C-alpha cells in the first residue's frame, strides 16, 4: 500500500484542527514536546510492546516512504544516517531500542525536539516506520574508526 494518500489526508485533517489541540500538558509526562503539524497524539497510549510487523520487508518499504513524506529525513538524514538529529541506523538508541521504546519515541516524541507524530500517524504507520529503522544495517566501521 502506498501511504502517501493516507498521510496527505491525515495532514489535511490535522492542519484544520491543529493549533488549539497543541497543549503540551495533554500527553507530555516530564517535558513538553513539539507536535508535528501542531496536533497532539490522541489520549490513551496504545499499550503494545511488540512490533506486529517486525522483519517484514513490505512494511519496512512503507515505513521508508513515510520516513520521507513526514520529513523525518530532514532531521535524521537520508537513510537515517544522522543529521541534526541522531543516526537511527547505528544500532544505538538514546531512549531505548526495544520495539516499544522506538514506537514511543515516534508516537509521543522526545525532549530536545523530537516531534510527536501520534497526532498525524496511526499506530500501524508508526510500527511500519519502526520496522524500517530496525532493518537498517549499522555502518561497517562502528565503533572503531582508523586512518592511514
Amino acid at each position, binding site marked *: 500500500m502506498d501511504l502517501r494518500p493516507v498521510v496527505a489526508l491525515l495532514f489535511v485533517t490535522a492542519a484544520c484542527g491543529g493549533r488549539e489541540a497543541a497543549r503540551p500538558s495533554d500527553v507530555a509526562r516530564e517535558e513538553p514536546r513539539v507536535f508535528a*503539524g501542531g496536533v497532539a497524539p490522541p489520549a490513551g497510549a496504545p499499550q503494545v510492546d511488540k512490533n506486529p510487523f517486525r522483519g517484514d520487508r513490505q512494511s519496512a518499504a512503507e515505513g521508508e516512504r513515510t520516513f520521507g513524506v513526514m520529513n523525518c529525513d530532514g532531521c535524521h538524514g537520508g537513510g537515517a544516517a*544522522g543529521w541534526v538529529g*541522531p543516526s537511527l541506523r*547505528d544500532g544505538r*538508541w*538514546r531512549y531505548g531500542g526495544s520495539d516499544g521504546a522506538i514506537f514511543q519515541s515516534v508516537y509521543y516524541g522526545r525532549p530536545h*525536539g523530537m516531534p510527536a507524530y501520534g497526532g498525524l500517524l496511526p499506530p500501524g504507520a508508526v510500527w511500519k516506520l519502526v520496522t524500517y529503522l530496525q532493518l537498517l544495517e549499522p*555502518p561497517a566501521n562502528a565503533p572503531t574508526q582508523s*586512518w592511514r
Partner: protein
Amino acid sequence: MTRLTVLILLGALPVGGAAQRGDWPMPGKDFAATRYSDLSEITGANAGRLRPVWTFSTGVLGGHEGQPLVVENTMYVVTPYPNVLYAFDLTREGYPLKWKYRPAVDPNALGIACCDAVNRGAFYADGKIVYNLLDGHTVAVAAATGKELWKTRIADLAQGETTPVAPLVVKHRVIVGASGGEFGIHGWLKGLDLETGRLVWTAYNIGPDSEVLAKPGIFQPFYDRGAELALTTWPAEVWKNGGAPVWGWMSYDPALDLLYYGTGNPAPYNPEQRAGDNKWTASVLARRPDDGTLVWAYQFTPHDSWDYDAASEMILADLVVGGRPRKVLVHFDKNGFAYTLDRATGEVLVAQPFVDVNWAKRVDVATGRPVVDSTKLTGASRGNVKHVCPTLEGGKSPASPAAYSPRTRLFYLATNNMCMDYQATQATRIAGTPFIGANTPYHAGRGGYMGAFIAWDAGAGKKVWQTTEPYPVWSGALVTAGDVAFYGTLDGWFKAADARTGKVLWRFKVGSGVVGNPITYTGADGKQYVAVYVGIGGDWFLLAGDVRSDDPADVRAPADFVPDIARHTSQGGIVWIFAL
C-alpha cells in the same frame, strides 16, 4: 543641530555606551560591520611571536559561531545552546568570572534549529548585553551585574522558528530575526525597545506590502516597479510558508539612516513548488530602524533553486568604483558572486564571481539579474542535476563574516571550493518539522582543495591573493591596522596572515575546528590581544558527524567528501586569547 548631524553622532558611538577605543562592542566591531580594528601593536614583523595567554572551556560542545565582546575590560561570551552568558574580569589575573547568566531555554529548540544549536553572539548597548536564546527569546542583561533586565518572546518554535542570529542595536531599537528556511517559516525582522524589550514593529520579508512595510512613494527598489512585489512573485498562499529567514549579520549607515540585512532561502528547496521570483528571499533589504519601513530591496538570486541564502553580512565602505568615489555595500553571496552595490539605492555597481560559479554565466548589471545556465536549474521533475557550483554551503558561508581594511582597501574572507549534485523532491509542509525537498551531496571543486582564505578588491571585482586550505574554511575574518589578517580552519588551526600578500605568518593548533570569528582588543595592561571561539559545529556538525564524541547513541560514518576531518579535530568549545 540638524537631524543628519544627530544621526551621524549616534552612528559614530556605540548607542549610549561607554565603549572605548580598543573595545569590541558589537558583532562586526562597528555599524559598518568591517571587523577592522585600528590596533597596530601586532604587525607582520612580530606576529610570528604570538602566544596563547589564556583559555576557557565553555562546557558546551555545539558549534561555536559568533564572537566574544570586550567592553571596559570585561569579556562577554555567549555559548551555543543552552546560551550561557559569561562575563570575565580582564583586570585580574586568570580573568575570573564577574558573573554568569544561565537562562532557561526550551530544549525542544534543539530539534527545530536546522543546523546545530549555534548562537552568533551578543551586542553591547547602553550598559546592557542583548542577545537571542535559541528558543525564540531576546534577553537584555545588565553588563555590570548579570541581572536579567527583560526577556521578550519573539519567535514561535511550533512554526519552525529559532533564533541564533546576533541582534543589532541602533537608535534604542533592538533588531532581531529568526531562522527557519528549512522549516517553512514566514520570515520577518522585528524591532524591540531597548529599555523595555517591548515589540515596536514587525516587518515581514514576504507577503503583502502592508506586512512587508513597503509604502507607496517610500519603497523604491532600483530594478523593480509596481506594488505587491513580495506577493505577486509567488503562487497564491505559498508565500505564507516561503522562508526568507534572517540569520546572518546586520549593518547600519547613520548618514542614510538605513539598516541593511540579507534574507535566506525560499522554502522549500524544490523550486517547482513556488513559481516566480519569490521576493524578497535571497535578497538584501534596507529599512528604517525606527519603524521598519522598507526603503529599497535587491534580490541576488531570483527564484533561488540552489538554497543560496543571502544571509551574509553587508559591509559598508567608501570605495572608488569605475573611477568615482562611491558609498557602497559589499556582499559575498552564497551563490558565488561578490556584489558591490550603491548603498543609497541598491544599484549593482560590480558583480563578479569570487569562487568557481556555473549556475549563472554572469550578473547583468543593467537589469540586476543573473544570466542563469538553464542546465543547472533544479526541480523535482528535473531529476538529479549534477555538478552545480558552488554548493548550498555557499562560495562563502554566511556564518563566516568577511573583514574590510580601509588601509589596504581589501576585503578578507573564508571561501569554500565545493560543488554539489542537486536532486529536488516534493516536500510536504508539516508545522514543526523540516520542509526541505532536496538531496545535495558535495564534492571538491576544481583544483581538489576545498577552501581558501582570500583578499578581494570590491571596486574592481578581482581576487588579489588566495591561500588554499585542504578543508572548507568556515571562520570569520579579522583585519587590523598592523596589516595582519586572522582566520581559523576546520582542522583546528588559528592563523595570522600578512594582509597585503596573504603569507601565513603564524599558526597555532587550537583544539577544535574554528567556526567562530576572531576579534582584537586592548587589554587592561594596554597591550593588544586577539581572541577567538573554537568548537567545530554548525553545518559541520551535520556534514561531518564523525567529529562528534559526546553521544554514545549517535555514531556516524565519515562524510564521503571529507573522510578524514575527524582525524584532525573533534567537538569542543574553547575561548582562546593570544598576545605577543
